[in-house]
């Protein structure tokens, strides 16, 4: 789209928002007119949302959300201070990216520090992020401070090894077994790292993106996914 057309659209939308509906209808080119109408709908939606948010019942939630955004960065700074060079890459406002090396000590710190007190591991999941990398993600929650953060640890598919936090949060025992089962991420020093949902002699890591369904299992033919079924 050329620049002057964009300008035409934005001007028309502005006028229409102020109540002059003819501004859009007077555009001669049909394609431009349609685009202007779409832009108007979008702008109106944004506008109504802006108005709704503070008057809505979740007005209590709004400051919380802001807190949460800062919280993740704040904690990342605390970790960096205590364990230098443990943050992996740039800081993010939604999650904390850590290197695997010091994970056990950091986890212990996150759970036992008075100001943080993340005593509950809500969820642990693996993700195949592509480009030969896997990620283990931990959603932590503090029952006392009612904060939640997400920790991500990236490992290469060649050597997927992360220290186990089973001894810190007992719930991690089964969560880590499940992540191992589905992604083959090895949690070192885990006391009982076996497959949990799949049979013990299953081959491959099913939730990795390069996984191919086996043709037979103990001589039983595994039916192929039908063509065109998605």
């Amino acid at each position, binding site marked *: 789209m050329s620049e002057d057309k964009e300008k035409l659209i934005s001007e028309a939308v502005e006028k229409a928002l102020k109540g002059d509906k003819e501004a859009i209808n007077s555009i001669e080119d049909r394609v431009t007119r349609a685009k202007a109408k779409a832009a108007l709908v979008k702008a109106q939606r944004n506008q109504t949302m802006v108005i709704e948010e503070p008057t809505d019942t*979740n007005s209590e939630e709004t400051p919380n959300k802001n807190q949460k955004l800062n919280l993740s960065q704040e904690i990342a700074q605390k970790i960096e201070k205590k364990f230098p060079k443990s943050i992996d890459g740039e800081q993010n406002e939604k999650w904390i990216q850590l290197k695997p090396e010091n994970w056990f000590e950091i986890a212990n710190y996150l759970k036992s520090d008075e100001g943080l007190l993340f005593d509950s591991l*809500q969820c642990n*999941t693996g993700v195949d992020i592509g480009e030969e990398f896997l990620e283990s993600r931990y959603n932590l929650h503090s029952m006392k401070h009612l904060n939640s953060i997400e920790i991500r640890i990236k490992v290469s598919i060649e050597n997927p090894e992360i220290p186990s936090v089973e001894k810190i949060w007992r719930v991690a025992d089964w969560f880590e077994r499940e992540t191992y089962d589905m992604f083959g991420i090895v949690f070192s020093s885990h006391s009982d790292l076996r497959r949990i949902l799949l049979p013990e002699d299953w081959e491959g890591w099913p939730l990795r993106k390069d996984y191919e369904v086996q043709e037979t299992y103990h001589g039983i033919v595994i039916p192929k996914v039908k063509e065109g079924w*998605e």
Partner: protein
Amino acid sequence: MGVVHGQEMVLNIGPQHPATHGVLRLQVKTDGEVISEITPYLGYLHRCFEKHCENVTYEQVIPFTDRCDYLASMSMNFGYVVAMERLMDIKVDDRVEFIRIIMAELQRIGSHLLAVGVFGLDLGAFTPFLHMLRDRERILDLFEMTCGARLLYNYMWVGGLSHDLPTGFIESTLEFLDYFEPKVDEFENLLGNNKIFVERSADIGVMPAEVAINYGVTGPNLRASGVNWDLRKDDPYSAYSRLDFEVPVGNGIKGTVGDSWDRFYVRIQEIRQSVKIIRQAIDLLPKEGDVHKAMPKKIRPPKGSIYSRTESPRGDLGYYIESDGTSIPYRLKMRSPAFTALGVLNEIASGWLMSDVLAILGSLDIVLGEIDR
């Protein structure tokens, strides 16, 4: 005289055993009647839920969530659509919100009725089970009236519902509640004051609060340990913040806080609270409204991820959704509450007698479909 040492024996309970509430194998080490260690073996019901989700569109995931916890399908749908709406920033009408709450709470009553009834059945009380199934039947009738299905509903859709309420639904629901409310006292009396039931459940399988939190136990099991934690209050979703209800916690009336009896009693009290919530939701339900209005034509969430939790009858139901901007989930993980509840079994049940282990397992209210996914 020396002490007589018995020989340790390894036994299997299950996989096909009525007391395991599904297909679960428990390998137990016993010394006489005393169980010293329990190792659960899962996966007999594994249906590759998460793998399937990576091959279907976001809309098509909803029927799969039904089949995870087949005793609380509405709550499973609810958790998923709440996660999707948070990810896509969709706001739905009050009418949709309150219909969802009515359905989820009816489902909670139905699920707790079965949980409590089967718990009694595990301890040998057959009659209460029949009473509870009789009343659960009426809830299933209400669901059938709404969406045609009695077990797997596929009722809540992203941004709306599959159908609006049928005519006469509100009247039938109110009629059911009027009939049902006095029955709750009856259930409480039938089981809670039954001498055999109390003897078999009070002081048995005590779960202290720290253990429960450390093992990630949530829902009624956590509240029975005295922790006031309910996502409907503590991280409100949908329209729960506008409703007035209490969160019952265990206080060890018949024994110690966090014993099997408390887990039973918390569920009975939650049934009463759910009745209260449904009455309020019916009062607040707008008369008119299109339940399809906020539904997006094509579900394509923006790139990003979300972890969203809701309160299912069994605890914190979490969905971790990673979207890559297409109409198919890149990664979808369900954090199932019964999975973590089963994880604590070895901790709280070892050292008890064989019959008590089955009582404790019954009191945890697990559903294997959700554990194995």
